């Protein structure tokens, strides 16, 4: 099970430097407001903050009390307030209220807002409009990148997906470019950049401009190649049920910032515990990429080994016992603790999954991916909706149906939508509108409507704008072309073949051998071909926007240095743990190392919840 790492697999760069940079900058910023102050932290910045600093660090820099931003009137008595927030209108509005309330009561305080990772003009404009521009100082904490593990770096911007792909707001493009630039200046220079997707292209441009603005010093590159990919190039993969251990843990318990909270059902005690899940956890590290069906066997083998190790004690003399206690026992105890934790988690997941007929669900998913017995799939989904089983699950299946079938037949769409609204609430009308806009759940359109619309609008404007418009329309009308892509890239292996999950033969193992994730397959193909040559048909079906560029230092790097075999893959809009597992597999097969940079770790639930609009 523990895969032997290829002898020639390069070492990963050390990303802890990124944490240190972020911490140092934060300390510097805190010192910009000398004296004791209370610090208000945006809820979703707390976990990232925890990963790079602790309360003591903050206290050492005169932070008195810590509060979470809760959009309520504050109780602080401090004369200085510091707000550590994301650049969100809602939060800035709340700060305006706080400051204006103070003003109304004639209370004088000093205020500082630290925006992370950057500020937006819209936020500053709000400060101006609310008459507190100048009363409040603002700063930026350029905390772009949080290393979650040896090979995972997150921007921790879950809103990237909705803002960019649904709202069409490009506010995070430069952020992505800057993140890339930071990596480039510390671990680069990159020699090759490949990518696909509108946003990837823009992020690349932004990065390139920033490189041009700055100075590049000659240094030994640690990361040679970069692959940028938009999440909407492959929406099928993140909507599939995850069955690889780490992905499954994320689907069921939700891993937050590399940390998971296991409840009493896992710990078999009355309290929950928080556990860091990363390569430091030796047990986890060995099972994280495994198909769930393999995990039990592995864990019980481990448990037996552990027993044997403990059993050595009997028959030891005092001296041996002493060595055992001082050298081995601690490690064994640690392993024991981790083992029982993961066994507990596995049991709990098994229970949850059998309760909801997981097998049948997976069967439906696989049929959808394969394009097999679609009517049966539709009635399964219908019944799922009728029985009011999990709303997000129903939506996930509907979206998978739409993506794999290039949209629903109008009568199916109408009927399933009506039943969905009956079961989960009519206000999901708003959700359906969002899903449609993004192309996640659409009705099949008779081919013509769109072209007519296009030419009509096209006539109104000059050529250049018309080009842009067509662009916009094509993204609106975006077809997933999943079947054709699947055939072209062999994404769905024939179902009649046995798939041995113990010895995976390709990346399909992450979905029980039923499907090779499109995103990862593209990466594999492009790296193999050193570009997009031969993939023209594929890129056309994916709406184009592919690119492959070689930097000035790429040409002389013909010799395969280690850095050439380290590939940074940046997912714009989030990636799943399953995809990371697939890339790790690919890396082992090809003697490469992948570093995944993502705007956030996502999964089907997170992705779909970001589409919900049925709350005030």
């Amino acid at each position: 099970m523990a895969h032997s790492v290829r002898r020639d697999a390069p070492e990963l760069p050390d990303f802890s430097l990124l944490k240190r940079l972020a911490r140092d900058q934060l300390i510097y910023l805190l010192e910009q407001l000398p004296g004791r102050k209370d610090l208000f932290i945006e809820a979703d910045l707390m976990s990232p903050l925890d990963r790079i600093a602790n309360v003591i660090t903050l206290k050492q820099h005169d932070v008195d009390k810590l509060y979470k931003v809760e959009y309520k009137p504050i109780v602080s008595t401090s004369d200085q307030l510091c707000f550590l927030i994301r650049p969100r209108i809602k939060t800035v509005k709340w700060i305006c209220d706080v400051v204006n309330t103070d003003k109304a009561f004639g209370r004088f305080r000093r205020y500082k807002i630290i925006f992370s990772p950057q500020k937006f003009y819209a936020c500053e404009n709000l400060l101006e409009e609310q008459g507190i521009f100048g009363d409040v100082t603002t700063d930026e904490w350029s905390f772009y990148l949080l290393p979650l593990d040896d090979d995972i770096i997150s921007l921790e911007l879950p809103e990237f997906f909705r803002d960019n792909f649904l709202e069409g707001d490009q506010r995070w493009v430069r952020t992505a470019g800057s993140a890339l630039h930071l990596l480039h200046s510390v671990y680069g220079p990159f020699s090759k950049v490949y990518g696909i997707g509108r946003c990837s292209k823009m992020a690349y441009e932004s990065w390139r401009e920033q490189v041009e603005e700055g100075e590049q010093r000659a240094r030994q590159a640690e990361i040679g190649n970069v692959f940028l990919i938009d999440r909407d190039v492959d929406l099928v993969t993140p909507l599939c049920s995850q069955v690889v251990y780490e992905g499954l843990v994320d689907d069921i318990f939700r891993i937050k910032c590399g940390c998971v909270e296991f409840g009493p059902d896992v710990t078999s005690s009355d309290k929950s515990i928080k556990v860091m899940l990363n390569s430091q956890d030796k047990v986890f590290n060995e099972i994280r990429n495994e198909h769930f069906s393999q995990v039990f066997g592995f864990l019980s083998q481990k448990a037996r080994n552990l027993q044997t190790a403990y059993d050595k004690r009997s028959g030891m003399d005092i001296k041996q016992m002493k060595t055992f206690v001082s050298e081995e026992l601690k490690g064994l105890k640690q392993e024991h603790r981790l083992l029982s934790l993961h066994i507990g988690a596995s049991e709990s997941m098994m229970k949850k999954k059998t309760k909801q007929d997981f097998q049948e669900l997976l069967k439906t998913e696989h049929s959808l991916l394969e394009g097999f017995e679609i009517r049966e799939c539709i009635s399964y989904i219908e019944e799922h909706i009728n029985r009011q089983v999990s709303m997000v699950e129903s939506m996930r299946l509907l979206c998978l149906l739409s993506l794999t079938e290039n949209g629903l037949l109008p009568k199916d769409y109408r009927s399933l939508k009506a039943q969905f609204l009956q079961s989960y609430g009519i206000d999901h009308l708003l959700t359906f509108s969002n899903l449609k806009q993004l192309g996640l759940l659409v009705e099949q359109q008779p081919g013509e409507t769109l072209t007519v619309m296009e030419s009509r609008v096209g006539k109104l404007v000059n050529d250049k704008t018309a080009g842009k418009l067509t662009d916009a329309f094509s993204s609106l009308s975006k077809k997933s072309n999943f079947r054709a892509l699947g055939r072209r890239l062999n994404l769905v292996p024939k179902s009649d073949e046995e798939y041995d999950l113990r010895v995976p033969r390709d990346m399909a193992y992450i979905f029980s051998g039923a499907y090779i994730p499109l995103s990862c397959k593209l990466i594999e193909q492009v790296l193999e071909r050193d570009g997009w040559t031969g993939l023209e048909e594929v890129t056309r079906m994916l709406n184009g926007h592919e690119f492959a560029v070689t930097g000035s230092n790429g040409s002389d790097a013909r010799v395969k240095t280690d850095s050439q075999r380290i590939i940074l893959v940046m997912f714009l809009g989030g990636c799943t743990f399953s995809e990371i597992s697939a890339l790790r597999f690919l890396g082992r097969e090809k003697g490469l190392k992948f570093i995944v940079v993502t705007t956030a770790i996502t999964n089907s639930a997170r992705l779909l919840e970001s589409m919900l609009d049925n709350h005030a």
Partner: protein
Amino acid sequence: MTRGKPDEEEYWNNSKFKAFTFDDEDDDFTKLKESKRAVNSIRSLVEEEDEEDDVEKVSWSGEPVGSISWSVKETESSNRSTGEVRDQSFPKIHTAPSLPKNSSGYSLSSLFKGKAKTGSFQSFSESFGDPSIRNYAPELRKPKSEYKDYVSDWTPEETVKRMQQGKVYSLEKFRSLQDKLLLLDEAVNAHDGNVITAVLIYLKKSLSKEILFRELITREIALSHYIHYLKEIGEQKLLVELFKSLDRTEDMALMQYRDHLNIRDENKRRDFLKNCLSLPFSPDDATHVQDHYTLLERQIIIEANDKQVESSGQADIFKKYPRKASILNMPIITTLYYSCFYHYGESDGTFSSPANIRKTFRISDKQFLLTCLGARAKLKAWFDVDALFTTKNWLGYTKKRSPIGFHRIVDILQKNNAPVQVLQDYVNLVEDAEQKISLAQKYKCHDVIINTYRDLKDRQQLIVYRGKVERGSSEYRKIEEILSNSQIRWKN
């Protein structure tokens, strides 16, 4: 980022390179400026200058520009990215422009001037070291009187670039519609949503909405940003007007409908939904919104009635199963379930009866059956459950029918803890023999298994099964009986 002190050679090359470009562009810039002057009649800047001179130069943090604390801050903010103090006598080499600087703000062209005026070495070095502003650097070297003329004469491209880098900029000079649109298009070309929105905020302030809307129609990307911005700051009314002018009536209707979520009081919410009925939804959505209104209207009536009945203690059902939550704002199916639970058997004239809800909201047979089954099974009203499936044919014989497979029904019953006697009736109705046996084994319906094997004349399986049941139990005796029956012609 991790830059140490640059070694001498590197510095030398860099500065040489810069000096060269610098002069080069200086010439270009002069030429450009001259030709521009010749072509355009430059707007009189004199008045503006005078005004600006009267104003004290104040940076964003409120400190007078050029003051010590101001300059300290500037130093710090420019050094922040590397976390080390730079030797000020060397031109700065910008290693990390990815970490934007502090000095952004509105209408702060004065700040830039201020730097030049004080002649502070640091501000010079700042602009020297930053190749991105090489273009404007010459103005710093001009006599004071001259640069004033074009200090805010940045092209749209330059302005956008400065905004991206968090530098001082000024939008006031973009006054003609053409200039404004050039600026907007430039922002869009730069793919920086933050800047696009900033420009849009300026256009919102300085253009009438009709003109702005008209121009946005052909600018899809800018339009998305504008809509998103208006959504975020909650300018509902303006959004409605925008959608109207774009002829995006369905979007407009949905957005207005969305507002009901902000209304807590159920009566006000109902009235609001009633008003929504006239909005231009798509035909399908209009039906759904109508349903939403009708649903809430009825829920209010049912809630008021049941609350009263429950508190008066008149009805046993509420005593036995107190309501856990109010039915207000629940989905249609939940309401149906509630009605099947508390109001079963009411005549279809009442709003709370299952039949009425079924009819009003056009609930499918399948859906109705599933919900009803769930509710009656929960109450262990097995008689009601039976009745759900029983149909009489014209001869008066009764037969059990179901729009969904009986194996599903068994599943639902089992989840509601139905006793074996009830379960086996339904397991028996499963048509596929194999499925029937596997279900029967799962739920331990011995009779079904034994009878099925008997009907299949499968002696071997029956013998195997005899080994599984308890010796001497009624099942065991039954199997014995069948096996010893000489009438049966076993197939094996």
